[in-house]
């Protein structure tokens, strides 16, 4: 058996939907860069406005509705959006993976990824309610 045969045998043994690796890695990178852009803007605005690390006025979230805050250049609004994008990225990865496993007819892994999704969504729902 040469190496090529071994590689082919592996693919049959443990199949990952062909599109998955490419789609997932691009998704993760895009999410990170988008979130990073908002973090950089937020950080620069904090510095421009002289907001310290422990400034209580900015610490725990938004002082007003999101879009007007963004338009007004409120630094925390930018960081908040970055945070949401960053948190949403792995969740999107799980959704995409579940879809690809389902399309590939991989029942067990569709169930596993949906379970992970359920845990993450439940976390958010419980957080919103509490």
């Amino acid at each position, binding site marked *: 058996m040469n*190496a090529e045969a*071994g*590689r082919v045998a*592996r693919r049959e*043994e*443990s*199949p*990952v939907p062909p599109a*998955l*690796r*490419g789609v*997932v*890695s*691009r998704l*993760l*990178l895009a999410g*990170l860069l988008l*979130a*990073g852009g908002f*973090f950089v803007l*937020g*950080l620069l605005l*904090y*510095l421009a406005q*002289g*907001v*310290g*690390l*422990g*400034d*209580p006025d*900015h*610490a*725990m*979230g938004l002082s007003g509705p999101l879009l007007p805050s963004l338009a007004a250049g409120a*630094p*925390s609004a930018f*960081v*908040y959006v*970055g*945070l949401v994008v*960053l*948190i949403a*990225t*792995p*969740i999107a990865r*799980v959704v995409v*993976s579940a879809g690809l496993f389902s399309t590939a007819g991989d029942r*067990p*892994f569709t169930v*596993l*990824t949906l*379970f*992970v999704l359920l*845990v*993450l969504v439940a*976390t*958010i729902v419980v*957080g*919103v309610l509490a």
Partner: protein
Amino acid sequence: VGPILPGAEGALADVLLLLFLSAMAGAFGSLVGLGGGLFIVPILVVLFDVDIHLAVAASLVAVLGTSLGSASTSVEEGLTDVRIGMFLETATAVGGLLGAVIAVTILAQQGQVLILAFVPVVLVAALLMPRLHREDVRPDPPPDAWADRLKLHGSYYNVRQDREIEYKVTGTKAGLLLTGISGVGSGLLGIGGGLFNVPAMHAFMNVPIRVAATTSSFMIGVTAVAGAVVYLFAGDLSLPLVAPVVLGATVGSHLGVLAQPKFRAVTLRTIFLAVLPIAAGLMLLRGLGVLG
């Protein structure tokens, strides 16, 4: 929510210092393969006088950033075992959620307990570290029904040996249990969990060390999200703190990956083993109220 650094006057210097230290933590973390979380919490708590809950929350977000960065390349390269990662995420996500919920409920007023809990974890890291450098895969491990059923066995291309290394996965139940516990640690203490994920996959599940390391980085994103969301809703995610920590750690972690070939593994391990007890000692003093 406790006191953080006073604002205004020293704002720029504070932010730049935190940015720099987070980058160092991220770079060093990725150089030794354990992520920056292990150092970010002590930096925030001891040097910046940040409440432990805020520090853990900010560290979790940083861990999330570094995970996305490293996974975006390692998944594409094929070094990450996506199946094993997604299988174990079922445990780490639940663990991460549980750990964070414990931190913001039972331990909401017990910051000292959290700070002290950091100490044994850091020391366990030091003990597990020397075991992380065996490349061996057992050719004939005990059969595992779940691994067969879920088709978890795999192989990866080893560049140094220029050949495909096949591995037969075993110990799936032990792996789930251990990575689940690792998830709890992640949610409680803001560390990535690579610390326990990697030995769990390597020693118990027969996954090659390099595959285990990248697969752990991949999983950590989901683990950190479960925890971070809890801290977000508990009001423990301080936005001015999060921005420099995430940016620093993520960029630093990427630089660490690029710089890795320039360092000898032994050198890194020695520095790591020297720095860990210092971090643990500072946290111990802080937890006992001697410091700060």
